């Protein structure tokens, strides 16, 4: 029974694995969930979903798949004893509503009509104005608007929870959170790690200890060294605004991965191309700018420089003074880019545009030439190549 459900989850874009399905089946065999649909929902959620951003997707697929179960619950209504129905209806109706029922021919009349319709109806029903189901204006069914209506199921103790829990879609806003998918990027960035020893000496230096002990005629002389830490320094320059708006998501992922991976990470923003100044805060980009020359002076040549940008613009913006779309630049962007490259020998340009489009955009060709062909697509494999070029 669960195999179609499993494939529906996978078709729905969840990466549920066989192990997880087997876990769920084992848990069911051991009687963890009992027989209630609610319990089964909770159990399958705990076993099959491993990321809160997928919870909403799971809820939707679950709802779609188990619509059938809901239908069979609908059948239960047909077996409801009349006494129960009457009692429920009386409990729920206000004085005013009851008066209206009288207008319709009295409660017994209403029950009789309900009977007849239950006999006529043979499927689950939603909307409409005659059949029994949900969200309609017929006098019978749940979530309806007819004041003379008899609510069936909406407050019934067993039936209420059956669909509602996952229909509520409480996890909607967790879907598409930024942190998603950064693991691959982090793993790629890890290759850039360069370990250096700094801090307190708390590790045994085996070679030095042997050496010193031997020199000491066998009397032990223990030597300690500090633990190795990632000491790579990265300068990240991000193109922002304009044509980059299409790539915001992937840039956010890269940025979030980089900022948690590198201790020494400095980042700056630019628009379209590098000119005499960059900025750190996009809200104050016009008031608080950092001169590009200051950056080359402040951050040493041991920094690795990574540009992220689509390099898609008019070629004038690169090769002519005054070519910038935003301001009058005394010197062309190409000069500034070359200046940065003179300081930072380890530099790459990551381009979110697909590689096959590069040759058709003159500005990308130009930028690639200045970068000495060290331009890579902003994909996991491109990132891998780029990191290799940085070594």
């Amino acid at each position, binding site marked *: 029974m669960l195999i179609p459900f499993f494939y529906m989850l996978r078709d729905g874009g969840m990466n549920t694995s066989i192990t997880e399905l087997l876990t769920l089946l084992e848990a069911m065999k051991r009687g*963890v969930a009992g027989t209630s649909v609610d319990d089964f929902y909770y159990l399958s959620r705990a076993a099959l979903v491993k990321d809160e951003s997928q919870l909403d997707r799971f809820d939707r697929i679950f709802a779609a798949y188990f619509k059938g179960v809901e239908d069979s619950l609908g059948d239960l209504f047909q077996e409801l004893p009349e006494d129960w129905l009457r009692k429920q209806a009386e409990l729920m109706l206000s004085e005013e509503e009851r008066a209206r029922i009288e207008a319709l021919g009295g409660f017994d009349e209403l029950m009789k009509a309900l009977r007849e319709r239950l006999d006529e109806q043979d499927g689950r029903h939603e909307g409409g104005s005659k059949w029994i189901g949900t969200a309609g204006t017929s006098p019978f069914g749940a979530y309806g608007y007819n004041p003379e209506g008899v609510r069936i199921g909406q407050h019934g103790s067993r039936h209420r929870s059956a669909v509602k829990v996952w229909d509520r879609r409480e996890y909607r806003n967790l879907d598409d959170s930024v*942190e998603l998918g950064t693991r691959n990027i982090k793993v790629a960035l*890890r290759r850039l790690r360069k370990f250096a020893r700094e801090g307190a000496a708390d590790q045994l230096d085996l070679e030095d200890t042997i050496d010193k002990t031997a020199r000491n005629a066998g009397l032990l002389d*223990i030597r300690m060294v500090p*633990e190795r830490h990632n000491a790579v320094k990265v300068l990240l320059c991000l193109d922002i605004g304009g044509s980059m708006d299409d790539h915001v998501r992937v840039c956010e992922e890269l940025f979030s991965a980089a900022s*948690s991976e590198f201790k020494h990470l400095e980042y700056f923003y630019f628009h379209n191309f590098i000119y005499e100044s960059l900025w750190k805060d996009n809200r104050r980009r016009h008031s608080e700018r950092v001169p590009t020359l200051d950056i080359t002076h402040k951050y040493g040549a041991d920094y690795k420089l990574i540009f992220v940008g689509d390099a898609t613009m008019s070629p004038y913006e690169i090769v002519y003074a005054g070519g910038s779309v935003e301001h009058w630049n005394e010197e062309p962007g190409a000069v500034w880019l070359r200046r940065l490259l003179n300081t930072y020998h380890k530099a790459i340009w990551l381009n979110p545009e697909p590689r096959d489009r590069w040759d058709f955009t003159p500005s990308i060709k130009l930028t690639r030439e200045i970068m000495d062909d060290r331009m890579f697509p902003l994909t996991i494999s491109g990132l891998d190549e780029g990191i290799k070029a940085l070594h």
Partner: protein
Amino acid sequence: MTDTRFTGTTTYVATDDLMMAVNAAVTLERPILIKGEPGTGKTQLAVEVAGALGKPLFEWHIKSTTKAQQGLYEYDAVARLRDSQLGDDRVHDIANYIQKGKIWEAFASDEQPVLLIDEIDKADIEFPNDLLRELDRMEFYVYETQQLVAAKHRPIIVITSNNEKELPDAFLRRCFFHYIKFPDKDTMARIVDVHYPNLKKNLLSEALGAFYRLREVPGLKKKPSTSELLDWIKLLLAEDIPPEALRSDDKRKAIPPLYGALLKNEQDVHLFERLVFLDRGAGHQ
């Protein structure tokens, strides 16, 4: 196998879905991974599960420098080297220099224990991968003494994560997962009730109202969480603040008293005060 089921405790309110996830993990003896906003009681869960089921608790708190090996055992080679120089007899048994980690301690426990691995996302990105076999088979090998350590009773493992790093798929597949969502008003009222049973009804509802309004202020860096609410109510009780003071229908009194307990971030406090100020300005015109 045990048929004890976790149903929350007198000091911990567990929702239906949380109970289901915990019970599934207990029954199948698989680890359970708990995520959620800070302050929703992730770490507390392990303590309460251990308490409710009457099992011993082992806590392993992860730091950024923690290595997976440290949870198993550490071999103090330096101490052994030193002892050999001093001619200490202990030096002949290598086991004297093996220090047990939290996982070993839990494996060696005579009754089924609860093992908390707290904030696993703080560690290196490969940390969870290094524990796959240990969590799966519940055994590991001590190379120095050629000894296989297997769990006497598979521990109930509760793992918490604050989502600072993504966890590898292979690791996730072996766990049950539960995301503690922020409690709704009813659940929150129950939570406050188990902590402060004699709270006046109207004070509670006013406090909850003010708390949820504060959570909805857009742009807060750190939204106040359950644990902050509990602290705040404690303060309100200590200061004997009347419930009326919490109502914000009156714009001029919109700042809840003692809000320092709820907002922990300087920028948030600043933002909040500015919003209230703007509100007042609008009120006067």
